[in-house]
């Protein structure tokens, strides 16, 4: 049996504040008493603590952004080039050569509306899943709420998402496509759902990854496979009606379908599908957080 348990950390104001008032008081620190003791089972989220460590969250995000395009010639242009190139390739091979239908809108804009969310999802999932092992040495040497590690790489790619969205807006203007009002309203919600899915799955995989490094190698295949079972390059209509429920279980299906129908106005929004996505994404997120918190205590020992 695993004998290691998580520390129970209780933070509360302490009467002994005066006792230390003779010492220099540093920044906004309030005198706290920390109790470290073994604890077992599911651990709740310490929101207060996360808030205290927000600066660490910013700096990790800042580091990831800063480092990403270091020592590259075209730098941030990669953020534009990557989705555009992917769109061009997909348009040539899937839209052109393979002749995949695209709900009666030009294939480039059809596939880009899917890639918009898909790229965010895959970058975020990949970043989150590898976040613990990439910061292994920090985990072993410094304490902080570990949740910061997978959350930071799921939030920073939102910047890339927004860049890609600007490209998308340009394309919509070029193809004279007008988004529906409901599509615009739903847009932030879809981004939120993508975040929940990527973060939930990412936290779970990050925690598994630190014990079984197999994840690191299996992940690229997993993400690639997921691309093909998500209607990014093809419309759901291509899949037989009786398998739709299977597609719907993947929260990204609902997100991408809703984005497509809402932004391109190809057909009415399938709110059932969106609701299923919402539920599965939220469930994934909650499961991810709890699994992560439960295993968090042994990270430093098994990393």
């Amino acid at each position: 049996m695993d004998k290691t348990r998580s520390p129970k950390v209780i933070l509360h104001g302490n009467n002994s504040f005066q006792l230390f008032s003779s010492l220099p008081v540093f920044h906004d620190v309030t005198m706290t008493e920390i109790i470290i003791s073994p604890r077992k089972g599911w651990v709740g989220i310490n929101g207060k603590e996360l808030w205290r460590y927000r600066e660490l969250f910013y700096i990790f995000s800042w580091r990831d952004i800063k480092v990403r395009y270091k020592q590259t010639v075209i730098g941030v242009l990669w953020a534009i080039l990557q989705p555009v190139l992917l769109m061009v390739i997909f348009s040539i091979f899937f839209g052109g050569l393979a002749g995949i239908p695209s709900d009666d809108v030009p294939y480039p804009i059809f596939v880009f509306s899917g890639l918009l969310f898909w790229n965010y999802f895959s970058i975020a999932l990949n970043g989150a899943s590898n976040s613990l092992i990439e910061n292994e040495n920090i985990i072993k040497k410094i304490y902080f709420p570990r949740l910061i590690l997978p959350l930071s790489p799921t939030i920073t790619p939102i910047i890339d998402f927004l860049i890609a969205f600007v490209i998308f807006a340009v394309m919509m203007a070029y193809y004279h496509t007008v988004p529906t009002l409901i599509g615009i309203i739903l847009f932030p919600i879809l981004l939120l759902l993508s975040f929940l899915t990527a973060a939930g799955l990412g936290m779970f995989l990050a925690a598994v990854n630190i014990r079984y490094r197999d994840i690191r190698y299996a992940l690229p295949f997993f993400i690639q496979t997921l691309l093909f079972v998500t209607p990014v390059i093809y419309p759901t209509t291509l899949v037989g009606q009786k398998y739709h429920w299977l597609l719907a279980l993947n929260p990204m299906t609902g997100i991408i379908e809703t984005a497509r129908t809402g932004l391109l106005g190809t057909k009415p929004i399938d709110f059932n599908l969106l609701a299923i996505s919402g539920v599965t994404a939220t469930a994934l997120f909650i499961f991810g957080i709890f699994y992560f918190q439960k295993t968090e205590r042994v990270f430093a020992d098994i990393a």
Partner: protein
Amino acid sequence: MQQPIIEVKNLSKCYTISHRLSYNTFRDTLTELAKRPFRLLTERQKEKEEFWALKNINLSIAAGEKIGIIGRNGAGKSTLLKILSQITPPTTGEIRLRGRVASLLEVGTGFHPELTGRENIYLNGTILGMKRREIKKKFDEIVAFAEIEKFLDTPVKRYSSGMYVRLAFAVAAHLEPEILLVDEVLAVGDAQFQKKCLGKMEEIGKNGKTILFVSHNMGAIESLCTSCLILEHGNLLIKSNDVRKVVQQYLNSQINSKTQWTKLPSIDTNPWFIPERIELRDIGGNQVISTIRNDQPYYLYLTGTIAELNPLLTIGYAFYTENGTLLFWSFQTDSHEKNWPRLQVGTNTLVTKIPAHLLNEGEYHIEFISAIYFRQWLYEPGRSSVSMKLTVQGGLSGSLYWTAKRPGVIAPIMKWESVNHRLR
């Protein structure tokens, strides 16, 4: 009476050691799962072993105390610091910390090679628990301390290792927690910088901070700490305000009282060099049993086995004084390459001469050290378990004026001549 700033009650930490050599992969787990129904429970228990890194530690530390923690490698020092800094949870027991803790278990944690010095100051500072505002305020001070003004906007991957360490320590030195946990970070940098770091630590200590300081450097412990404790096999052996006494007790327990060392059945595994036997012999080839005289040379015989020849292998010894000050290192590769002793696969015995009139009277200890040059230590100085004691007594000099131990760690006899001013 003030409440103690750190209270440790019945603290224990158990690690489970898995005896499987293979890496934790899904495959292993799956095969194990397949085996499980067929294997008996006893078999499984054999595979895992409990290791108690800390056993029932009770400790109470007053605010402002500066505690040195000493003990051999694996005695639980680092585990204690890790639990105190919440990196790993205890197995049993409870700790109450009544102050903000900063732990310095490593210099430069989180440094990113691609980022500049300036950026890394912010990154590392935040990781260590400083606020942005605080870093901004101390920024110039940190840069000045690290002496890297000119390279502030250079990525740290282009820094020399000295600059890197200086910058890392400078950030850490400007932390201002109530409790500072420090693990051997002073073992880096050149002597001058080490002195500066010690000075900074002293300054931090004077400001009323509580410091827990793990080190193998007894000199640093003695000059910095107001109390000292020894950990041995996870037990708290002694804690006292008489730092000197504790250090002496530790050193005495450390030194093998014989002038010979023979390999114990151990778990040492490296293909390059495993020491089997170390002994001292006099000029006639007889083994030295107790003390040696200073007017004769003597020879250190080093026997060990090599399974795989590595051209980067360095074998040598470190010479320490009674109170743990390093006198010198010597390696078989110190001279020109053409003079290096030849090594072969199998058993090798190397002999090295320690000249007469080098040491003073007193006790010394010799420690076997070995490394793969610039890659890794095989037997690291200050941590290696292979050491032996040496007593020098008598034979200091032929002079009537020099009959007793001189001040100073060595007592060479220098040559004196007169250069008379004949031409005047």
